[in-house]
Structures are given as structure tokens and as C-alpha cells.
């Protein structure tokens, strides 16, 4: 087994006595696509928040490339190579699509602009580069958010429901893009409710229920797992 890129050990976070994430441990190896599923309120987004520093964890350790990152400021975590999107879209509405991408870059602006235009062309927004992000449709904003993450060339990408609101044709391109990122050696962890997406894309799936990890394995195995079926459909 190669050294994990991201290693979460006994991560816990509770809000007012309710355990949103309860002693979750998991490890992500480089160059793979992982899925994180579970019923609503099972702690998927909170887990993302704790890994990226948006929320402070109560207990547990998070290591990225072997280095402890729990307790760091969100921007410091991002700079180490973790990019993410949000379940509720968080583009910068009064910045243009192009500016949304440029603003997160460092170094040469000309190089960044060429890359940004290329990415916007890839998600078929090249006609809208100077449109304010807030004027774009829901699906288009998701795409801007997705390519914005790529501008920083992170080695780990956390995607929170990337397929929601994106139309079918674009969705296929998006999934193809995720596979290509994997082929380039990136690691992807995605939260998704669309089971077709999860089962078709992910190599390993983690299942959360009431903040606890109840299963982990290849999609086929997960689909047949008793506890998973129970969590989703009840006994």
C-alpha cells in the first residue's frame, strides 16, 4: 500500500451535543476517486468542513502528505494542495467568471488568464467569461466553481455534490474531467446523491450514517451491504 495522501484518524465534531461526525477514520491513496455517501444529515459536509478547516474539529487528527493539517487556517490548508467546492454554490457573484478563476491564482497573470480561458472553454462557458458569476445559471455557477478549484492545481479535490443542477450533457463532460484528473495523479473525494454517478465513477465508497462510518469498499460491495441498505431505507 502506498502512503496515503490524506489520512483521517478518529475525527469528531459535534454541534450542541449532537455528534455530526463521530470518530471517523479513513485514508485516501493518491490517484484514485473516492465517494462519500450517506443519508441527509449523516455528516458528509461536516467532514469536508473539518478537513478543509472551515470548521474546527473537536477531536482527531488529519494528515495530508504526512503532515498534520488539523488546526490550520483554511487558506493554509488550501495552499498545501487541497481544493474544494461547496454544496451550496459559493462563487463570487459580483466578479466575472474569468475573475472568479484569476483571483485564486498566484504568479504570472498572463499565464493564469490563458489557463482560465482554457478551463472556461472546457466547460463551454467561453462565451460568458466577462459575465458576472451571479448572473449565470445554477448549473453554470457549479461549473465555474469546479474549474476555479482546478486553477490552483490541488493534489486533493473535494467535490460536494458536483452533479446537482448540471445538465446531462455537461455532466458527462464533468465526469470525464474528473476521470482525467485522476489519470493525472489527482485524488478526488466526492459527496454525491446521484447513485449512478457514484457507482460509475468511484473506486472506493465510504458510507456515513449519523456521523459514523458504517461501510467502506468498492461500489458493488457497498450496494449489497446490509447496514447501508438499512441506513437508507430503514429496517
Amino acid at each position: 500500500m502506498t502512503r496515503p495522501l490524506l489520512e483521517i484518524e478518529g475525527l469528531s465534531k459535534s454541534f450542541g451535543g449532537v455528534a455530526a461526525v463521530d470518530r471517523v477514520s479513513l485514508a485516501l491513496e493518491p490517484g484514485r476517486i473516492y465517494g462519500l455517501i450517506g443519508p441527509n444529515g449523516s455528516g458528509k459536509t461536516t467532514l469536508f468542513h473539518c478537513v478543509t478547516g472551515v470548521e474546527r474539529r473537536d477531536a482527531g487528527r488529519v494528515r495530508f502528505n504526512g503532515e498534520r493539517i488539523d488546526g490550520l487556517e483554511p487558506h493554509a490548508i488550501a495552499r498545501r494542495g487541497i481544493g474544494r467546492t461547496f454544496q451550496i454554490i459559493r462563487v463570487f457573484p459580483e466578479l466575472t467568471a474569468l475573475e472568479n478563476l484569476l483571483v485564486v491564482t498566484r504568479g504570472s497573470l498572463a499565464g493564469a488568464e490563458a489557463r482560465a480561458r482554457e478551463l472556461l472553454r472546457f466547460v463551454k462557458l467561453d462565451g460568458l467569461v466577462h459575465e458576472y458569476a451571479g448572473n449565470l445559471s445554477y448549473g453554470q455557477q457549479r461549473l465555474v466553481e469546479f474549474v476555479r478549484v482546478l486553477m490552483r492545481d490541488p493534489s486533493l479535490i473535494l467535490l460536494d455534490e458536483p452533479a446537482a443542477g448540471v445538465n446531462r450533457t455537461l455532466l458527462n463532460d464533468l465526469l470525464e474531467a474528473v476521470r482525467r484528473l485522476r489519470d493525472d495523479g489527482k485524488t478526488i473525494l466526492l459527496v454525491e446523491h446521484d447513485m449512478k454517478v457514484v457507482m460509475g465513477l468511484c473506486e472506493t465508497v465510504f458510507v456515513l450514517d449519523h456521523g459514523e462510518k458504517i461501510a467502506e469498499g468498492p461500489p458493488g460491495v457497498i450496494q449489497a451491504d446490509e447496514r447501508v441498505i438499512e441506513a437508507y431505507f430503514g429496517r
Partner: protein
Amino acid sequence: MRPRTAFRVGLVLLVAALAAYPAVGTGYGVRAMLQIFMWVALAASWNLISGLTGYVSFGHVAFFGAGAYTGAILITSAGWSWPAAALAGGLGACVVALVIGYPCLRLKGPYFAIAMLGLNEVLRALVSYFEGLTGGGNGISLPTLEATVPVYYAMGVAAAAVTLLAYLVITSRFGLRLMTIREDEVAAEAMGIDTARHKLYAFLLSAAGPGIVGALAARDQGYIEPISVFPLATTITMIVMVLFGGKGTVWGPVLGAVVLFVSQELVWARFPYLHQLLFGSIIVAVVLLMPRGVLGLLQQKYHLPRTI
């Protein structure tokens, strides 16, 4: 490129006309222009922190007052020349911004606004208390000096410098990063932007201008006291000017400063009490009808750059 060239030519002509104005203008005219320069510098400075990052500073006059006292003390006690004292006033205001910005910029939304309001009251109380240095409630009288025209030029340079600074910031990636704080601070952090550091930089930049013009105003008026350099009304005026002209744009604060100052002068001359009513009405009208301000509205509607 035609409109741009025309704009640049116009700008050069305007600067030339303003530079020549003291030679031909009336005493009142020169004083009025001097005041407009001051308001441009103040409004454009407020725009740097509040228009760009969305952190509304309700105590920005504190930097004006800090600069006024720094300048006045250096002139009277240390014998500094007023231009040097003005630069020191800017520096003094930045020091205050550094000390207060570090803790206060962690506060969000209305809490930051209230903290800044408090800062202004604290500074006013401090200068009233430390009588040995500041003269307390008696204030400081500066040595008599006829310097209206030199101060006119100094104010003009200050206004131009702050506007140029705003242009440079707003057209840069640094400026865009400041705007991401206004747009969505959580997302900005998640994308690797050190928001705390950026806010502090913007705050420092926004304090320098008021500090400098505060010291210049002290020299110009020849006398300062706590209530004359820390009035809440000055902060409100800056805010209204920026909101009217268009926050987050380069020329919005300039437009707001000119229009509001001129209209205030016109109304003030005829109806001494009515100008406050006018001011209040403008606030209500702007907030209700065009929350982006004149230039902000044009910018959004016609897809113009923020450099308008």
C-alpha cells in the same frame, strides 16, 4: 479606444485647470475646492476598506483625527514643517489602524461596524484625557501661517494619490482578492486567500489618506479640539458619498464627494437647517432606489469595468 483617449485628455485638462485655479479663483472658491479635495481623499479611502471588502467602518474619522493630532503636535511641540507633519499624520493613522485592525477585523458584519464606532469614541476620550500632550478639551492652536494655497495643492495631491491608489488596487489581483472577502469570505479562505492579512492591508491603505488630510486640515484651520476632529458626522458623510457615487468603483467616491459637497454648499447657503434633511433624504433614496450608487448602477447595467 476613443472614449478612453478622450477621458485621459479630459483628465489631464482637469488637473491642469485645478492646478491653475488658485491664480484666478476667489478666496471662497479656493477654500471650497480644498474641501472637495479633502472629501475625495476621505471617501476614496473609505471605499478601499468598506467598498471593496464589505467591512463597513463606522469610525473612519478616527484616522482623520489621529492624523490631525499627530500633525498638530509635531508642528507645535517638535517644530516640524507642515508637509512633513502631514506625512507623519498618515503614518500615525496607519499605526492606529494596525493596532486596532488586528483584533477588530476578526469581527464580522455589524460587530466590526460597532467596534469602529467605539474606536472613534475611545480616541476622542484619550485625546481629551492626555492634556499634557494634546491640550485636552482646550485643543491645540497652531502657529499662525497663511498657507491656504500650498495646503490647496497638498490636498489636491492627496486626493489624486488616493484615487490613483484606488485605481491601482481595483485593477489588480490584490483588489479582486479584497472583493472576494466582500463576496464570500468562507469561499475566499477555502481557495487559499489569506483573508485576515488582506483585510489588514486594505485597512492600513484606507487609514493613510485620512491621516494625511487630517493633518492638512489641522494646519489649514489652525486650531483643533477633540470634538472638531472626531465627529461621527464626518464618517457618515464619507459613507454617503461612496454609496451615492458607487462603492467598489474608482470614480464613484470622487463623484459622490463632488456632488454631495456642492449640493450641500448650495443648500447650506440658502437654508441652514434644510441641508441635514437633504442629506438624510439622499441616504434613504440611494439605499432604496440604487443601492449600488450612480456608477455602480451604470457599471452593472452596461457591463462597464470598475475603473469607471
